[in-house]
C-alpha cells in the first residue's frame, strides 16, 4: 500500500455509468481498489473495470466527483489497496453479479477460456448491453420481474409461474462445473448464495468461491473501523482483509 499520483484522462458516459480512465504506475488488480482524493471530506473508492499496464478504467455513477476533473489533472491515490480476486491457471470460470455491481467483475471476463456470467437485476432495462461483453462469454440473465431470461431471485427455491423458469438447477450445474466462482452482490445475499455452493459442491476448496463486499471505506488501511463486518472468524476489515472474501467465510456468520 502506498500513495501515488495518477493522471486523469477522461470521463465518458457509458450508460448507466461513467467510464473514468486513470493512468497510474501501479494500477489495482481485479477486486482491488484505490482511494482517490476528489475534493470532498473523504476519499472515493475506485474499483477497476478494466486494467492494463498503464492504468485502469473505473465505472462510476453519474455525477461522481471524479468525473468533474479536467483531462490531464493529477489525482492523489492511496493504493492499490486490499485483496482482489485470486485465480490460478483457470479454464472454467463462473461469475455471478447483481447488475449494478457487475463492473467490478469486468476485469475477469477474459480471465479464462470458458467464462459464464450470470447477471441478476430487477428488470430487462437494467441488464448489461451484450456488446459491452466479450463475445466468448456465455451470458445468462435473471430478472426479478421475469422480463428477460430466468425469473429471479437467483436463490429462489419456489416453483416458477407458467411460462417462466428458475435458474436454480442450471446454477447448481454451473457451480459443479466451474473451477472458480467470483461474486459481486449485496452482502445480505451471500449467506443464501453460500448455501447454493454448499449444496452443489460437497467439499469446495478454500477460496473456490470469492465474493466482493461493497461497503463504505473511508480510510482503506484498517484505521477507522467503518468497514468492519462479521465473519466466521470474528469481525474483519473489508478494506484490508477484503474486499474479496471467501464466500464461505462471510456467508455464514
Amino acid at each position, binding site marked *: *500500500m*502506498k*500513495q501515488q499520483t495518477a493522471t486523469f484522462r477522461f470521463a465518458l458516459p457509458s450508460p448507466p455509468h461513467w467510464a473514468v480512465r486513470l493512468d497510474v504506475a501501479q494500477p489495482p488488480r481485479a477486486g482491488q481498489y484505490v482511494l482517490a*482524493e476528489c475534493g*470532498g*471530506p*473523504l*476519499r472515493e473508492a475506485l474499483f477497476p473495470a478494466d486494467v492494463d499496464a498503464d492504468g485502469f478504467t473505473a465505472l462510476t455513477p453519474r455525477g461522481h466527483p471524479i468525473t468533474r476533473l479536467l483531462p490531464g489533472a493529477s489525482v492523489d491515490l*492511496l493504493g492499490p489497496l486490499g485483496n482482489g480476486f485470486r485465480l490460478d491457471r483457470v479454464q472454467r470460470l463462473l461469475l455471478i453479479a447483481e447488475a449494478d455491481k457487475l463492473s467490478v467483475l469486468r476485469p475477469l471476463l477474459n480471465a479464462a477460456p470458458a467464462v459464464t456470467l450470470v447477471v441478476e437485476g430487477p428488470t430487462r432495462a437494467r441488464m448489461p448491453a451484450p456488446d459491452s461483453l466479450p463475445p466468448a462469454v456465455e451470458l445468462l440473465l435473471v430478472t426479478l420481474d421475469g422480463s428477460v431470461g430466468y425469473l429471479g431471485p437467483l436463490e429462489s427455491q419456489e416453483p416458477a409461474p407458467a411460462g417462466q423458469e428458475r435458474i436454480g438447477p442450471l446454477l447448481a450445474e454451473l457451480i459443479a462445473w466451474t473451477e472458480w466462482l467470483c461474486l459481486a452482490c449485496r452482502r445480505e445475499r451471500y449467506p443464501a448464495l453460500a448455501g447454493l455452493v454448499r449444496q452443489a459442491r460437497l467439499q469446495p476448496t478454500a477460496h473456490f468461491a470469492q465474493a466482493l463486499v461493497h461497503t*463504505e471505506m*473511508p*480510510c*482503506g*488501511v*484498517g*484505521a*477507522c*473501523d*467503518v468497514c*468492519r*463486518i*462479521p465473519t466466521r472468524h*470474528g*469481525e474483519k476489515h473489508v478494506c*484490508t482483509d477484503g474486499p474479496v472474501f471467501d464466500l464461505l467465510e462471510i456467508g455464514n456468520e
Partner: protein
Amino acid sequence: MIELAPTHKYGLSLPTPVMPAAGVFGYGDVYRDLLEEGVLGALVTNPISLRPRNVAQGQRILTRGEQVLLHTGLPNAGAKAILRQYGKYWERSPVPVIPHLVATTPAETSKAAVLLSAARGVGGIELGLAENVSEDKAVELLHAAQDSGLPLIVQVPFSRVDALAPRLVEAGADALTLTAPPRAVLPLPDAPEDKAESGTRLMRGRLYGPAVFPLLLNVLARFAAPGANQLHVPIIACGGVASPADALTCISLGAAAVQVDVLVWRTPGVLREIAAAFKAL
C-alpha cells in the same frame, strides 16, 4: 518537549504536540507505509473497552457537504486481545502510546486501565465518556481509570464542557482533550425501496469536518486561552484541525497539543506538515 502531566509522578512528555484523535489511526501500525516514524508526538489509539464490542448496525458513515457523520459503535476486540496483538508494537514505539479507554462501568474501566498500563510503551491513558454521563458518574469513572497509576487525560464531550471540565480537573485529571465530537443527526438518503415507508430514516452519530473547528476555538477561547484558563491543566485541542495554521491557532489559544481527526484518512500527510510547523517554531 511538551509535558502533558506536569504534576504526575511519571509525567507524560511528547517530542512534538501533534497526535491523531481517538478512532482515526487504529492501534498504531496501519499508517507505517505512509508516515515515517518520528512524525507524531504520541499515538492515541482507537477506542478500547475491557470487553470486545461489535461494530454498529446500520449506516456508519454519511457525508453532507464538508461534514462527516460517524457512528461505528466503538468496535474493538477488547483490551486483552488488543494487548496481545499490539503490545509488541507499542513496546517499540518511539513515542508514548496513549490508549483511548471507553468508559463503561467503573469496575470494567478500572480493570481495563490496569491491564493497559502494564504494557511497555504506554505513557498515559485517554478516557472517553458518554455524552450524557452524569457529573458524579464521570468522576467515578475517572477515579476508576486512575487505578492504572498512569497520567490520565479525559476527552470531554462537546456539549458537556461547562459541566464536566472543572469537576474532572478537581477530581485529578492530568489533562483534558477538548472536545469529543458533537453529537449530530442527519436524514439517511432515501433508498428507492423505502419511498413508500412513512417518516424519515435518521442516522445519529458524531460530527466531524471543518465546521467543528470554529466551535472548538470557541471552547478554547473560554477554557484554555491565556487569561481565561481556569482549568490549570494542559488542554489538548481536538475537532476539525485541518492545517498547520489551524494547529498554531489552537496553541495560541492556550492548547498544549492538538489532535487531528478524520482528515487523517484523506490526507495522512497533514500530521507530518503540522509536526514540521511545530519543529520550525
